[in-house]
């Protein structure tokens, strides 16, 4: 290609400028402002002028047991759901990689959970889990499989497992889509050559498919774990964080600090903690991604 003229360069930047301003104004600047809020004692209730209070908001949230449990809920939720989604997504992708009749129906089926609004999906499952009239208990009790109705969302730790099941159901297929795209770039000749050399299905999976799929796996893990880490509407609409805060995530805890207690200062500290952890997660994956690519 011809070397860029300075005129070109100016034009290129000019065309990007509008998006840059909007994205910067809606995402970047607010995040910076939130850091500022987390170091101040701003509150809607007090209505007082802001002043710098150092790290005291952070000290107060880390001594708040509800915050600590939300943090650990979020970590556990993210680790377990993303791991299960990877397993389920991998199985789905490997099977879908073979040719199928009705590919259109299958694609729609796979896309469907992704397209469903998370909040409404949570409402749907709340109804499925309903202890008295929900589908699961209807089947289990009327077949005599359990003597008592199971309180899926009302008991610790069952409520967390139920919430994880909903998340895995909803997002495994997105995982599968990304992995499938990766699978389709693996040349068929590699498998054919290995087959001629007598390699079985499983050893081909371990020695050819998985190593070549690592970039796709990392990408899928990156997307999904950052998404799971900010889970908000799932607990909001499914369990409201209960029972006794056992399914409350960081996002839900932070939301309540802001809009239930109007504590914008300590709420912002929650935001910043979540934000930093997500960025560490992102940086970690990018790092691994780079070394894999080299």
């Amino acid at each position, binding site marked *: 290609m011809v070397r*860029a003229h300075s005129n070109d*360069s100016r*034009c290129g930047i000019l*065309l990007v400028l*509008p*998006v*840059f301003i*909007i*994205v910067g104004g*809606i*995402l*970047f600047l*607010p*995040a910076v*402002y*939130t850091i500022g809020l987390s170091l101040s004692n701003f509150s809607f209730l007090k209505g007082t002028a802001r002043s710098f209070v150092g790290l005291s908001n952070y000290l107060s949230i880390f001594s708040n047991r509800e915050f600590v449990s939300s943090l650990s809920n979020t970590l556990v939720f993210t680790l377990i759901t993303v791991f299960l989604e990877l397993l389920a997504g991998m199985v789905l992708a490997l*099977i879908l990689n073979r040719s*199928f009749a*009705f590919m259109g*129906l*299958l*694609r*729609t*089926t796979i*896309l*469907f959970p992704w*397209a*469903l*609004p998370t*909040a*409404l999906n949570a*409402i*749907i499952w709340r*109804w499925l889990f309903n202890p008295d*009239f929900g*589908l699961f208990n209807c089947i289990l009790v*009327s077949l005599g499989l359990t003597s008592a109705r199971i309180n899926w969302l009302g008991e610790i730790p069952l409520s967390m497992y139920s919430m994880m099941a909903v998340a895995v*159901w909803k997002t495994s*297929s*997105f995982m599968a*889509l990304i992995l499938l*795209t*990766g699978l389709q770039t693996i040349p068929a000749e590699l498998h054919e050559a290995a087959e001629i050399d007598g390699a079985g299905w499983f050893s081909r999976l371990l020695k050819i498919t998985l190593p070549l799929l690592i*970039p796709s796996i990392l990408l899928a893990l990156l997307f999904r774990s*950052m998404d799971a*880490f*900010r889970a*908000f*509407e799932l607990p*909001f609409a499914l369990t409201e964080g209960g029972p006794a805060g056992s399914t409350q995530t960081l*996002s839900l805890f932070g*939301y309540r600090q*802001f809009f239930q207690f109007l504590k914008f200062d300590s709420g912002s500290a929650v*935001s*910043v903690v*979540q*934000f930093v952890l*997500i*960025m560490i997660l*992102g940086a970690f994956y990018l790092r691994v991604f780079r070394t894999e690519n080299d």
Partner: protein
Amino acid sequence: MIGTNLQAAVKTALKYLFMSFLVVLFFFPVAWIFLTSIKTTGDIYAWPPVYIPRHPTLQNYHAVLFGSKLGRYLANSIIVSSMSTVSVLFFSSIAGYSFARIRFAGRRLLMLFFLSMSMFPQLAIVPALFIWFRKLGLINNYLGIVIAYTGLFSPIALWILTTYFRTIPLEIEESAKLDGCSRLRVLWAILLPLSIPGVIAAALIVFIQTWNEFFLALVMLSKNELRTATVGIALYPGEYAFPWELITTATFLAIVPIVLLTSVFQKQIIGGLTAGSVK
């Protein structure tokens, strides 16, 4: 000979079995709320359970459409999602053209900036946006949420469009440029029409994501008349005594547009979602 035939038949049978399993696995929740929505209240709360409605009825649909705010919520969702989609596509196609076609300094860094912005959690931006937008009168205002969504969803649209634009051969544009067409004119008259599949993918993904977005919609459109469908329905259980016949009906109505869009355009959407995931 017979052995291989049998093997093939078993394989086909297994394939169909697996496919039916997937269809059931992914559609049973929605099938169940649909069945609930056409049941009489008596059937819904009957014991032993009634799986297939004994007297299918549309009374719940009538009640939801004429006796609740759902119609209003759906209208709000349609307004917010379509305005946001148009706005996102307008800004990101201009920028996408620049990323795909013009070599300028800092291009890679800028793309990295946009990609990392798309990782920002809503919780980190919500306090500042709420305080600022309240001062500007943009809370409980369609314009406010459209601006917010433009910022939130432009990075993904930008990524999809840039990836797509790069697949279009340069030659046609170059001859147009020789004829003295300006850059924006090249984008509008040549590149965009050639990129229709990419544009559709980006538009659908943005539309679906704005339709489904919850956190900002909850905070920025808090007045009951302005709530989007997702928020309005999700707040139902808290405000009333769990009228499940109405909740399931409203939920079903709110996901129908999304289901239709994805089943008609599944190919384009999958193409967009996985754009650039292979490099």
